């Protein structure tokens, strides 16, 4: 054992790895939003004669939000614009005490979908509703996809 490092420095080496296991979990728990998966394909293909095209909707996914402080909210945006005449809207069920922004037409700019959440905590399995609408002027739109990005933010 002669010449081996002392036990204290060894502990110092180990400390970061212990923190590595613990800190990310605490940081994730501090402020995060997690979705259950992707919604089903939204396909428009029907209408009543004389009326606009029937919209398509999906309610199969949920989200869990964890906040570290009161007043944090959720915003959402698209990664790219929708085709002309096609609109993608979203509505998130709000955690207890918070207000949903209702049906929000998504764009490439962050928009509030859930208002200030009144207290820190974790709120799980809250519903996400998507709605796709198309004007007749949109014509036929071949299968396409957009990413919807949710972010937990502080302040107004």
């Amino acid at each position, binding site marked *: 054992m002669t010449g081996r490092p002392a036990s204290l420095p060894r502990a110092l*080496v180990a400390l970061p790895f212990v923190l590595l296991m613990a800190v990310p979990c605490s940081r994730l728990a501090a402020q995060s939003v997690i979705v259950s998966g992707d919604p089903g394909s939204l396909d428009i293909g029907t209408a009543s004669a004389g009326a606009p095209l029937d919209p398509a909707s999906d309610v199969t996914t949920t989200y869990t939000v964890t906040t570290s402080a009161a007043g944090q909210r959720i915003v959402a945006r698209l990664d790219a614009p929708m085709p002309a005449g096609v609109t993608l809207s979203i509505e998130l069920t709000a955690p207890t005490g918070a207000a949903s922004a209702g049906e929000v037409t998504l764009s490439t700019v962050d928009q509030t979908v859930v208002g200030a959440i009144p207290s820190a905590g974790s709120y799980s399995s809250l519903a996400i509703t998507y709605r796709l609408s198309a*004007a007749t002027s949109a014509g036929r739109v071949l299968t396409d996809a957009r990413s919807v990005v949710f972010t937990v933010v502080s302040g107004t």
Partner: protein
Amino acid sequence: MGGDGIAYDALQHFTHPQEDKLIMLRRIALSFALLLGATTTAVAQTATQTVTFSVADVKIVAVSGDPASMTVNAGGSGSTVADSSTTYDVTTNATSAAPAKITAQITTGGDMPTGVTLSTNLADPDGASVGAASAGDVVLSSTAAQDVVTSLSNIEATGNTITYTLSADATAAAVAGATRVVTYTIQ
């Protein structure tokens, strides 16, 4: 294990105690650097969903109901009666580059009796000089669908008048209670 221990001891025998401390400090610094990097990338304040979508070709036409019974005099040249009590609604997302059209055909009851003609006239659904166009009075046939409205694109229109005209010429014989089914198709 034994092999590792021998190698470790051998390394220590050739290492100065001051260098031991230096190596240890480097290890500690490296560990904290790894920790810092890991915590930075592990924070997830965002989530992403992929939304897949499409819009199919939509072409829908519907009528408001059946017209009233129409009666003309047999054998009377120029005898004509009309009915404008019904309407049609239409929706399509067809483009002007590939417009839709509505056709009409007698699909039940066969051809009209000799000397008797049934015509239909569908009003222009957009009421404009451009875009959709009515074909005017079209004599209906049981053997072929005929265009009654053409150039339909990007339209949702309701309450467009359908005018039926029943005519009989001098060759027409008396017919009691005949019925024909007229089918409108958008394509």
